[in-house]
């Protein structure tokens, strides 16, 4: 069997290549710092502890979602089911814990069930994608519709208020000034880091992104890795759902609206390549912060609502243009 198909012709001066990569990996962070500096100049309120807390609140959900999406994108796949998974989880949670619509009060157990639901959604993504050989783009797009649709069907269009104190505490109770939800998000980051750096799954995900056929030759169970990765992502989306429900204090079918593109943008702005194999969850953290700080900053700087989305677009182009390692990306698609 010939393997030429996946060769990398480059063999130019190595050390420089490596150094460039180091810089590139840090570039998003530099962008973030510049951004914060700029905003502070215009509105000093930005650099207050209070605002840091609010940014963390705004960032916790995108971060958790981004963690899940990172693993998928590292494989060179894409996951559009973010909103589906999140919405379904949030709605089911609102129905299981102490709420204003029914007499359930499963509390912690309810959260467990929701995480299982998320895993199930991700697992379904993975299995259909791998077994039926359908591009992840399409499978997860379908799952998006299914997830939101199911959530809608469960609610019959209504919204359910969540009264469970434990859930609400995620948004209200604080530790060291930060809401518990933020700490939960950080805990998820830790888990993601461990999975990425210290488990075979994490390594195999990189391997798939680097060259799936070669990975298979090394005896890696490619299909299983993919399914596991999607399942894992599903769980993260479920956590995102829990946080969203906690933040809004209710579950409704619109709770996920608009979160997909924020998530993927954050991951890519962080410097993870859509082509797979390059990136990390830490870079996603930076990417999320860039996106969140940007939208928070535009309000602080008094950018008129109708041009905010445009400004955001330009800023993101700038951020990515600054931080992309062009040497490494021979082909940009």
């Amino acid at each position, binding site marked *: 069997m010939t393997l030429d198909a996946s060769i990398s012709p480059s063999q130019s001066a190595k050390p420089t290549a490596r150094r460039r990569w180091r810089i590139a990996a840090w570039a998003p962070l530099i962008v973030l710092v510049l951004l914060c500096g700029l905003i502070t100049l215009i*509105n000093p*309120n*930005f650099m*207050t502890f*209070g*605002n840091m807390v*609010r940014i963390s*609140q*705004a960032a916790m959900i995108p971060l958790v979602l981004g963690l899940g999406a990172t693993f998928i994108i590292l494989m060179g796949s894409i996951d559009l089911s973010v909103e589906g998974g999140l919405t379904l989880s949030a709605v089911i949670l609102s129905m299981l814990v102490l709420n*204003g619509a029914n007499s359930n009060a499963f509390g912690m157990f309810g959260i467990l069930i929701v995480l299982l639901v998320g895993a199930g959604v991700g697992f379904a993504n993975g299995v259909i994608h791998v*077994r*039926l*050989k359908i591009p992840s783009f399409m499978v997860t797009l379908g799952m998006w519709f299914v997830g*939101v649709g199911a959530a*809608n069907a469960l*609610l*019959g*269009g*209504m*919204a359910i*208020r969540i009264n469970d104190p434990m859930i609400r505490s995620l*948004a*209200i109770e604080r530790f060291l000034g930060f*809401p518990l939800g933020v700490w939960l998000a950080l805990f998820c980051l830790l888990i993601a880091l461990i999975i990425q750096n210290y488990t075979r799954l994490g390594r195999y995900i990189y391997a798939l992104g680097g060259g799936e056929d070669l990975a298979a030759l090394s005896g890696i169970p490619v299909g299983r890795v993919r399914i596991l990765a999607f399942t894992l992502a599903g769980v993260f989306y479920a956590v995102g759902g829990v946080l*969203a429900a906690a*933040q*809004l*204090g*209710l579950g*409704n*079918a*619109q*709770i996920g*609206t*608009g*979160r997909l593109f924020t998530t993927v943008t954050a991951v890519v702005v962080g410097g993870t390549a859509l082509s797979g194999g390059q990136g990390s969850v830490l870079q996603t953290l930076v990417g999320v912060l860039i996106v969140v700080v940007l*939208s*928070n900053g535009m*309000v*602080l700087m*008094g950018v008129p*609502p*109708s041009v905010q989305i445009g400004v955001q677009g330009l800023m993101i182009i700038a951020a990515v243009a600054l931080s992309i390692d062009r040497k490494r990306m021979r082909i940009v698609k």
Partner: protein
Amino acid sequence: MVNKLISGALGKPIKRRDILKGAGLIGMAGVFPAIITRPAFAADKPTVVNSIRSLSNPYHATWNKGGAAFAKSVGADYVTLVTEGNSEKGIADIKAILAKTGGNAVINVDPNDSPDARPIIDAAKAAGAYVVTQWNKPADLHPWDYDPNYVAHISFSGVPYGKAMAETLIKKMGGKGGIVALGGIESNVPAIERKKGLMEALAANPDVKLLDYQVANWSATEALEKTNAWLTQFGDQITGIWAANDDMALAAVEALRADGRAGKVPVTGIDGIQLAVEAIQKGELAGTVAWDPYWQGGMGLAIGYAAKTGVFDPAKEPKEHREFYGKGVIITDENANTYYAENIAAEPKMDWNDIWGRVTGQIQYD
């Protein structure tokens, strides 16, 4: 029968990968029997149709309930269409229904965007169906130009109610302080009108300052983020929050709660959804306006149905019956409990024959 059909039709082209396609098709086939929820359409009675933005928000969900209740009351087939915010889809679906029922239909539509009304009316007239529109339509499109098919247009002037809420808010604030305002989708007529009302109220109260107006597109999530940013930017300067609908208002309340200020800073919404009324009872929300979507969903159909079945002849009705403002109910802590008991705890009782009961004057276009 479905399964046979499939295997028959696809049996030939599929030589290889049968399993795979089989799996896919079973997916489809399996679904079909499950989803044919309604019996064949009753030939004589007109089909009654509600076309609304989506069923994922309480407001339109209640609207849908009202429609179903009316359909039940006259024993007609009931169909719900959702635009999902997509004008083309909304119109296409309505045309599909017209084609399916051969025009024997009564349609009560909340157009996704004002201009959609025109093609909808054109299609309905061509098919001979009867239409009632609500909220959105172009100013120069009038029911009396399309007798008898375009029965009526119902709206609720956003201006007075937007103003009323602003006044409720200002009263709670003690006549002075700083307000931040959350607006709806910028191109929507109600959003524009409600904002206008807010501005009028502010003009009348010089001591109250509008700190900032941001668009949150009717969305709770966006409202939450905007409010969070405001709490940084203005901190304690904010003594009141005005929101163009309840979803955004409730999100603002949550943002305040996370800041430990829920209930301390008065917030107002509009639409009168259940959670909002509950929030008023809890004292977290200062007020809202109930359009009574249950009434909108049912009565829109009732008016059209009456015209269709010859109870009245649209052409003979006065203009204030063809383009009229409905009545909104202002809910504050004073009447929240009673409203909850009558309209939410219990299935609202409606007299579907009292079709002009809530007419509050002809719509004025400036």
